[in-house]
């Protein structure tokens, strides 16, 4: 019985999570946040892996950090929104 209850609650959790993600995907703040977080992280990783030695290319790091920060802010705004 406990096993069934656990499965139900697990399924219900998964269903809720799925519904939340689907709802959030229609929230533009979530999409913009995701986009800039992704691009920001890519720039940071690219800086660390490829262009760290060249001082003039620090713009990749700063831009990456700024984009990530902006992306995270948009994601947070979306997640704390009740809708």
């Amino acid at each position, binding site marked *: 019985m406990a096993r069934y209850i656990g499965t139900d609650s697990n399924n219900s959790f998964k269903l809720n999570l799925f519904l939340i993600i689907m709802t959030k995907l*229609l929230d533009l703040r979530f*999409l*913009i946040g995701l986009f800039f977080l992704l691009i920001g992280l*890519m*720039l940071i990783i*690219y800086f660390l892996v490829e262009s760290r030695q060249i001082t003039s290319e620090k713009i990749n790091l700063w831009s990456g950090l700024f*984009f990530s920060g902006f992306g995270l802010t948009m994601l947070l705004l979306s997640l704390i929104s009740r809708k």
Partner: protein
Amino acid sequence: MTLLGIDYLIIAIYFLFVIGIGFLLKKQIKTGNDFLMSNRSIPLWITSLAFISANLGAQEVLGMAANGAKYGLYTVHFYWLGAALAMIFLGIYMMPFYYGSKARSVPEYLKLRFDEKTRTFNAITFAAMTVFSSGVSLYALAMLMELILGWDFNLSIWMAAGVVLIYTFLGGLTSAVYNEVLQFFLIVLGIAPLVYIGLQKAGGWEGIVQHVADAKLHVWKGLGDPSQNPMGVDYVGMIFGLAFVLAFGYWCTDFLVVQRAMISRNLDDAQRTPIIAAIPKILMPAIVIMPGIIILALQKQFAGFELPVSEQGDTNYNMVLPVLLQQLYPNGILGVGITALVASFMSGMAGNVTAFNTVWTFDIYQSHIKKNASEKHYLYVGKFTTIIGILISIATAYIAKGFNSIMDLLQLVFSFVNAPLFATFFLGMFWKRTTGDGAFWGLVSGTTVAAITHGLTGAEGKGAWIMNVHQFYSGTSQAFNIAWISFVACFVITIVTSLFTQPKPDDELKGLVYSLTPRESRVTNTTLWLGISVLIVTILLNLIFF
């Protein structure tokens, strides 16, 4: 300019997101109203950013940087004198009539206020202009990508058009608007680091002052004499031509931008949309005009910042941003910069296509071809029109490649149509005696006078095809002066014709004319104070850079 894997990956992720937005919104689209009007359910912050983003196409991003280099800070008049005032005016005075009348488009408002022929005249010229602009945007994108990245012209055209088609076809106006907001952030955040690095390299503002001609670093100084400012414009042309007629004509009557406010959730939001949009708009010169001024300072200090010159000796100012991207951005952020440019072209194209399909479906198809069909039917027509709009845009891009002079001519003809438009709306909204015949003949006369004025005046080797009565200092000055002359012609002919024709009864004009609209449904105090605040900031900026 050589792109690496990281740059291509950023471009690919952008394409994935814009197409993904279309797929996510697909299920929300059930009726023609959802597809063409977003069911009037878009939140204020999105409509506000979409409002300026719809105008943030390639012409704005590349063109204003070019104007910055050519005319210096005088270019900010397009923002601080033209756009800001017009957007405040639209929000406070005109939006109650557009939104309150329940019109689905600007031409439909003309039908309610005047008659069917005025609406049809406006709808046909507008529809033709939007697909033409969309095609020119596509052509410019393909040319630029071929020039700076060596991409195949055909590939660029079909790829960009294909992506715009997918997301507008699937998600309709909502998808276009969502993407416009994403594109807005991408353009601003993609170009802002360029301005920062450029400014640093040029020696900050002191470096700019030291290396750029003083005439290009003022907004008002030198306007008393057109020979003393790089734009070749005087006070009359600037204030009446640009600020009053062209800017008000564009921001207050062009359905491409007004549509973004008309899909708000309520009248209050619709009124605040252009006013809130005016806040980032007055700051945009830092992103779109500054690169043009920065490059002038860099040219004096470093090699590699020269702009290409044509065989005729004309400097290609449109290359300001590509040259700066090439010289200042390393790979990685270069991918973001190129994506920002691509986004600006796609934003301009999608904005035009969505405005085109709304006007075609509601104002031409529903009005003249098939009335009273089901919502489902208009949804299919809207979707089909999207495909047709994209195909015409592609055809226009190829025509532009082969016959540049035809495109110049078309652009000129459309500018004649646009110039007097604001007079018609202004009289229609604020003088209840204005009649449909007055509006129609006013528009026709204004357009004719614009064409004749162009034929009688010349500038930079253009115009004066009837005879040369007057020579302007620049093409810009000629355009500004033609605008206010045609406005006056439209204004006078509309009044005279209206006085001799029968006006609509007052009952039919309630909610469409200022004097017949209750004061409580005009504007709230919050919106009014918001407008006044934006106005004060705009005046301060004009004074600081006087």
